[in-house]
């Protein structure tokens, strides 16, 4: 997004050092009350308050006891989950190819570290906050240790009590041993290093037990988790830390993080696709064909199209550009009609490229301007061709993976991949739909309204069924998409409609004065929307958008119904069918509950932090 927001007039953007000034003047800190007084004031201030505290505290304990009973019940066979962790995480990805999964995880960790450096994520964490968190966690662990049912292994109970007590002591020490704990801060780096160290120590020292697979038989052994688990995770954590420091060093060396932010922004859009289709899927390229056909095609479209677009964006060529765009568009549409009727053969890639080129040509007059802006526009096209052609080639090349049962994505990997790309794709689509719906042009408004209301009126599962069964019937002869791609498309279509309504809410919150002011500044429509209206609208929409993202993540479990092997289907159908765990559903379902919760809660927390940083909900 950063690249497109550059305009001739400098408008402060989020993340710009000077633009953040207003957030630096943070709201006054809330007055700190000592814990004793806080308890008295908030929990036992009056008789009715005390009664409520006791009743609901009791209910909370009963609930906790119920949950612990569920988790540590004698009927539960946690081996069902422990043995099947591999299945739950990556389904049937071949074990000898696991290095690909670890490479993916490592690449994501490196990108995360660099991004943390790029966006200068180093929140100031007060000693008080750490102390309170430790006290809270310690307290909960001790209560859990006391409440666990008798069947719980004593090692777990004692472990809970000991760790809980240790946390309590450390937390109390921090809270009461430090003077003015709310004013003292610990650096983010230190906290991160400590947590990483603890995770690594846990992996290498805690006797969780391990499973070996010999001829398909799972054999349990005592000791710490197997080296093939703890080794890669340790390396991953180290990569994360290292890339964080490298990123910071780069930022220092080039005197600013803007280039790094741009690079990471682009990476997060195309990087995961690279990881999925080229690393995880491992296509076996026919290099001869790639060199003879794919590469020349990409070059011809990239360079030829780039040159054409560069010429068309010359300010004096606006009329010619429209004419060329219209002709190209006509040709592209004819091309697709021809594809449906099978009039003549052509690589679908070429048809796509013509369509995209036509759209770019139509848009060219809008991007007319300085030489650098024109070059950037041509560059955008070049980038699109490079990424698009490479992705299509990669997807079409047969995979070399020796997989006993497709698809190659399954389990948690599938859930995350689908959720991530659905969110990513439906976001711009949602913005467009929202803009169209609030547009003054009737045709856009009507079309967008019809789309949104139609899609919102259909259950998601219907959309998924429709796309997984029907999509291929709508495609031209000889062209087909896989089940997963169909599901992804359907889900994106669905999600975009909701996204659009969330963003429309934000758009409506932008005052009319903002429009008038930008008109008064002489901004064009695109500049006004991109630089003035959308940033404000999106900022307001953050809570809703994150709500949508969480819903998207959770609803990926519906993929199970259209044939994907996501977490739910594995826990609900696959594991209970194994001879050793016939009918064992409960533990699997409990486990995926925890996974879903942990991720949703993290997203929720991240959005809270973002809201605080952007000052959402505060009067400005």
């Amino acid at each position, binding site marked *: 997004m950063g690249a497109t927001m550059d305009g001739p007039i400098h408008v402060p953007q989020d993340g710009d050092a000077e633009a953040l000034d207003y957030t630096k003047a943070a709201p006054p800190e809330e007055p700190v009350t000592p814990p004793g007084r806080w308890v008295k004031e908030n929990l036992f201030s009056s008789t009715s308050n005390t009664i409520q505290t006791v009743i609901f505290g009791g209910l909370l304990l009963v609930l906790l006891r119920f949950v612990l009973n569920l988790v540590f019940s004698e009927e539960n066979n946690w081996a069902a989950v422990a043995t099947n962790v591999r299945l739950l995480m990556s389904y049937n990805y071949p074990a000898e190819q696991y290095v690909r999964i670890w490479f993916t995880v490592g690449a994501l960790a490196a990108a995360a570290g660099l991004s943390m450096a790029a966006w200068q994520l180093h929140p100031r964490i007060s000693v008080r906050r750490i102390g309170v968190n430790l006290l809270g966690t310690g307290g909960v662990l001790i209560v859990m240790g006391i409440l666990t049912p008798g069947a719980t292994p004593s090692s777990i109970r004692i472990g809970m009590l000991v760790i809980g007590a240790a946390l309590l002591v450390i937390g109390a020490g921090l809270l009461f041993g430090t003077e003015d704990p709310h004013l003292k801060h610990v650096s983010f780096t230190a906290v991160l290093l400590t947590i990483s160290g603890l995770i690594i120590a846990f992996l290498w020292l805690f006797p969780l037990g391990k499973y070996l697979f010999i001829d398909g038989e799972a054999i349990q052994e005592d000791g710490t988790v197997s080296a093939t688990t703890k080794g890669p995770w340790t390396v991953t954590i180290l990569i994360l830390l290292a890339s964080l420091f490298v990123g910071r060093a780069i930022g220092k060396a080039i005197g600013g993080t803007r280039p790094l932010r741009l690079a990471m922004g682009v990476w997060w859009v195309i990087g995961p696709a690279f990881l999925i289709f080229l690393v995880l899927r491992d296509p076996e390229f026919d290099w001869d064909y790639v060199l003879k056909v794919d590469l020349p095609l990409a070059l011809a479209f990239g360079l030829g199209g780039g040159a054409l677009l560069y010429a068309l964006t010359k300010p004096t060529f606006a009329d010619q550009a429209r004419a060329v765009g219209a002709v190209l568009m006509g040709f592209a549409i004819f091309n697709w009609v021809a594809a449906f009727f099978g009039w003549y053969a052509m690589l679908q890639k070429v048809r796509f490229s013509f369509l995209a080129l036509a759209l770019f040509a139509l848009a060219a007059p809008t991007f007319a301007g300085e030489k650098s802006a024109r070059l950037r526009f041509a560059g955008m096209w070049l980038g699109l061709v490079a990424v698009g052609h490479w992705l299509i080639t990669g997807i*079409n090349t047969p995979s070399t993976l020796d997989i006993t049962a497709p698809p190659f994505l399954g389990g948690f990997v599938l859930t995350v991949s689908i959720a991530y790309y659905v969110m990513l794709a439906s976001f711009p689509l949602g913005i467009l739909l929202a803009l169209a719906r609030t547009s003054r042009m009737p045709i856009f408004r009507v079309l967008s309204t019809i789309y949104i209301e139609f899609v919102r009126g259909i259950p998601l599962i219907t959309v998924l069924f429709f796309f997984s069964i029907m999509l291929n019937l709508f495609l031209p002869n000889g062209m087909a998409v896989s089940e997963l791609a169909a599901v992804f498309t359907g889900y994106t279509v669905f999600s975009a409609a909701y996204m659009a309504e969330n963003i429309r809410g934000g758009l409506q919150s932008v005052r009319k004065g903002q429009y008038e002011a930008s008109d008064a500044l002489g901004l064009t429509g695109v500049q006004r929307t991109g630089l003035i209206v959308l940033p404000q609208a999106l900022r307001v929409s953050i809570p809703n958008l994150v709500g949508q993202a969480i819903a998207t993540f959770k609803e990926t479990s519906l993929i199970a119904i259209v044939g994907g092997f996501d977490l739910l289907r594995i826990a609900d159908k696959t594991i209970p069918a194994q001879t050793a765990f016939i009918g064992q559903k409960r533990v699997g379902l409990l486990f995926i509950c925890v996974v879903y919760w942990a991720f949703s809660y993290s997203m929720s927390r991240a959005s809270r932090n973002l809201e605080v940083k952007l000052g959402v909900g505060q009067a400005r």
Partner: protein
Amino acid sequence: MTRRGTTNRWRRAAGAVAALALIAGACGGDDDDDVATDEPAEADEPADADEPADADEPSDEPADAEEPSDEEPVDTTQGGSILDTVIDRGTLNCGVSGAAVAFSVTEADGSVTGIDADYCRAVAAAVLGDATAVTFTALTAAERFTAVQTGDVDVLMRNSTWTQSRDTDVGMDFGPTTYYDGQQLMAREADGFSPSSEVAEIDGAVVCTNAGTTTETNITELAGQLGIAITLQTFEDYDQVVDAFLAGTCDVITTDGSGLVGRKAVQQPEGENWVIFPATPISKEPLGPVYAQNDSQWADVVNWTVYATFIADELGITSADVDAALAGDFGPEAQRLMGGEGELQTVMGLSADAFYNVISQVGNYQEIWDANLTPVGLDREGSANAQWTDGGLIYAPPAR
């Protein structure tokens, strides 16, 4: 003012279109393949015909990706047999359940086991000489037959009952039954039931089963015929049925015998004895391979692969004895079956050692049974699945 407004509108429209272009391009990249049309002869793109990636399933089904694009995935009416497709592709696409105890199970390491999975391997061994050259597709009950008809799978081994309507209606054929199942009932011995109990004895009992299945219909019809009163409770899911039985909500549960035995073996609590009755099941559920209709070459291959495991079992040829059988130690029929003489296999379009590979790599019927059904407590002896020489129904035409 008006003029300016108009330009603005134009520009906004153009901007929106540009952004659409980006999306369209990106989406295209994500989902689609650059497949040529189906008329390579008229192609003006010379490379179309030998384009390596004209996939029907571009991203997920690597095996399919090698299929030539100038044909429908499976074209059984215009000459091409699935057999040729499978040999060209180098792997067999086999539809299984992936979640049926002892029939097809996805193990913790991602491998697929079970009697159905083993018959997939047997077909792959016969056609391709390699029992591991199978791509399993896990299908739900709802999508299994469509997958056969559309050619997504070459053969379906998904504990599917062979019925008249399925065989005649929906464009597919059934192969020889690999497992004779039948609906039975299970109750506690403490409630006065024994393996020799009759269905009439469940008068007044609470009977539980899955909702909307034929088992539900069968037991209701039978109760009506016998004039007994039962309280039928149905559950969405078989696991819930068993949980209800364990909790004592149900006196009797009913489903296919294989499902009952499996649960009894694993979930019967200590001190309780569950009994399965009546000895003759109340329904016939022959389970076997399913393949597309009107492809008799492929049908022969699948059928005779199954028969080969039956014959090997009948003649006592195990995976360890294949070389002896080939040498003639088990008689001339065994020798012919192993490809020692004659051209029994080659006329089918298979290599002479096709069934040698099946038996050596997968095993005979008894070996497949021992590997998959014995661990869940299913006994072959005395059941309908015994050899015909032992009074069962497992019977293969002679190999000559």
